[in-house]
């Protein structure tokens, strides 16, 4: 099968869904680009990461809307358009910019349906580039998904590869609830086998990336590929793992984690967001409450430290949990567990 990048996979999903459903619109800063520029060229950007490239020439200015740098207005307009019957896909550019539009996300979109007694839907998708690894500094590199995962009414998607990204994006646009879709910047160029045409991946179903017997590894977003690297190395030492990619953090497929733990008894959670009130902490809490009996060792949460994302290459490398840190954590956990038993 053809291999395409996650950038192209999401782009393809947007093309397919805009062609299928005239209610789908795309709006955000530079989603096309070039409006008002001196060259006269439109589609000059196609999004700062090129994810929305080619949409404007195909679907026109009514449906592919370049906006000013006004995040509250972008997300607010997406909300209003959704209440009025459209299915907007709003690009926030960087997930860090949730900071300038959070009211529209958690006071408005998340609560309309409940506050209005179930009499409306708010089918928006907010696309946001996430994650560290590109030396973009503290305000363009965060993993903010825990903040929205904790808000009832929102759904949260964090794809780890091109195939999932396309199927999850099609599901997200067709979903009647507000969805925050986190796209890891470092994954945009990474290719995987992606079928042409439409397919959807349901929310709330974890992907069992690989099966093993000694440990259950839950990894989120970019951490999935790092975990795979670590597990490749550990396989030579006879250590194998169930590697679970939750794919959606809300809803979260916690049952699959419990089932895996019945076999392995050991849980390592790898999360790129800081440790306090993180998705890792949430999963650890759920497991402690619901599958404590299956645990043979303390849960390991592998996260960055409780710091902002640093800038310098060396510091950022030290910040992100990499394959070697994951290997080391798994080795240490299993060694201590064996020693204790």
């Amino acid at each position, binding site marked *: 099968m053809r291999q395409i990048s996650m950038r192209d996979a999401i782009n393809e999903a947007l093309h397919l869904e805009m062609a299928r459903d005239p209610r789908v619109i795309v709006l955000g800063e530079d989603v096309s680009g070039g409006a008002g520029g001196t060259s006269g060229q439109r589609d000059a950007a196609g999004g700062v990461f090129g994810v929305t490239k080619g949409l404007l020439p195909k679907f026109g200015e009514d449906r592919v809307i370049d906006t000013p740098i*006004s*995040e509250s207005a972008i997300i607010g307009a997406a909300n209003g358009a959704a*209440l009025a019957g459209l299915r907007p896909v709003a690009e926030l550019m960087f997930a860090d910019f949730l900071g300038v539009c959070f009211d529209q996300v958690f006071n*408005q979109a998340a609560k309309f349906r409940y506050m*209005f007694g*179930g009499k409306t839907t708010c089918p928006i998708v907010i696309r946001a580039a996430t994650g560290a690894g590109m030396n973009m500094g503290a305000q363009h590199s965060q993993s903010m998904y825990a903040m929205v995962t904790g808000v009832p009414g929102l759904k949260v998607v964090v794809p780890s590869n091109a195939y999932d990204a396309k199927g999850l994006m099609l599901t997200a646009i067709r979903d009647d609830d507000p969805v925050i879709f986190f796209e890891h910047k470092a994954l945009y160029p990474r290719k995987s086998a992606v079928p042409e045409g439409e397919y959807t991946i349901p929310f709330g179903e974890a992907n069992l990336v690989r099966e093993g017997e000694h440990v259950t590894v839950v990894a989120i977003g970019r951490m999935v590929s790092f975990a795979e690297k670590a597990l490749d190395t550990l396989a030579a030492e006879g250590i194998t793992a169930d590697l679970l990619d939750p794919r959606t953090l809300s809803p979260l497929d916690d049952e699959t984690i419990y089932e895996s733990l019945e076999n392995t008894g050991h849980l390592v959670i790898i999360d790129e967001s800081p440790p306090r009130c993180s998705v890792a902490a949430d999963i650890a809490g759920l497991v402690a409450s619901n599958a404590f009996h299956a645990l043979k060792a303390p849960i390991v949460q592998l996260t960055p430290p409780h710091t902002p994302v640093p800038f310098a290459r060396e510091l950022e490398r030290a910040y992100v949990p990499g394959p070697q840190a994951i290997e080391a954590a798994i080795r240490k956990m299993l060694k201590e567990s064996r020693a204790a038993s």
Partner: protein
Amino acid sequence: MSLPRDLLLRAYRQMKTIREFEERLHVEIQTGEIPGFTHLYSGQEAVAVGVCEHLSNQDWIASTHRGHGHCIAKGCDVQGMMLEIYGRRDGLCKGKGGSMHIADMTKGMLGANAIVGGGPPIAVGAGIACKIAKRGNVAVAFGGDGSANQGTVFEAMNLAVVLKAPVIFVFENNGYSEHTGASYAVGSGDIAGRARGFGMPAETCDGSDFFAVYDTMAKLLKTARAGGGPATLEAKTTRFFGHFEGDPMLYRAKDEVARHREQMDCLRIFRERVAKEGWLQTTELDAIDGEVMALIEKSIAASRAAVPPSAADLLTDVYVSY
């Protein structure tokens, strides 16, 4: 030139309904039966009605924390609203929204909004939907002088100008942002002037005069419906009660409300005008008063007797599917 009789009668009925709804709530809130806190619209009726009489169910409005008047003017069911404010199961939002979150999409009512400045960006989105549908519909963003100082409102106004979205920003300048005077908090003192700075036409009118609001809105809507982009209406008005019920209004001169009730009562001004012009008979208006009082009485009685939501309702309507 006179407006059609049925329009005049309906406009009066709407304004009177809002007034009685609010004056009665002011009384009923003292009983402790109504949960939470409430912001009353008394005094501003001519603005909501003068604007909404131009709108159909296919036009949208985004409202504010002081939203009862907008809801009634846009056609929301009065008893359903009262039930909602009492937190009853059969309220317009099943008792899950309350006074500050009444909405009805079937009436083009995008919701009251407890966040000052929350509504205008949403109205722009509804305006974008109108623009795409090309049926000449519009969205109206209601806000107060307080919202005129929110950055989200500036973002919404600029975006509407950039996209030529059919949105009318209606600022009800009632003189107070909560407990602080607009003369202090609105730096330039000129909200319409700010709107012009964004590149849209803006008009100021007497918000106590239904006819002034209605006529000014007609003018602004003409260009918006024809694809000319957004416009702003600043209506100078007053509120007869505090920011919220229970507000002792220490920031207002002792006689201010009494004076405003005497000089700026939009219902009295309307009655005097239609009598002077010979457009409507006093007996017709008195008959409407009676019907409105009966409707409010019935709504209060129904709300008192109604059942609250059940515990199971807590868990529904969070998601469409999860």
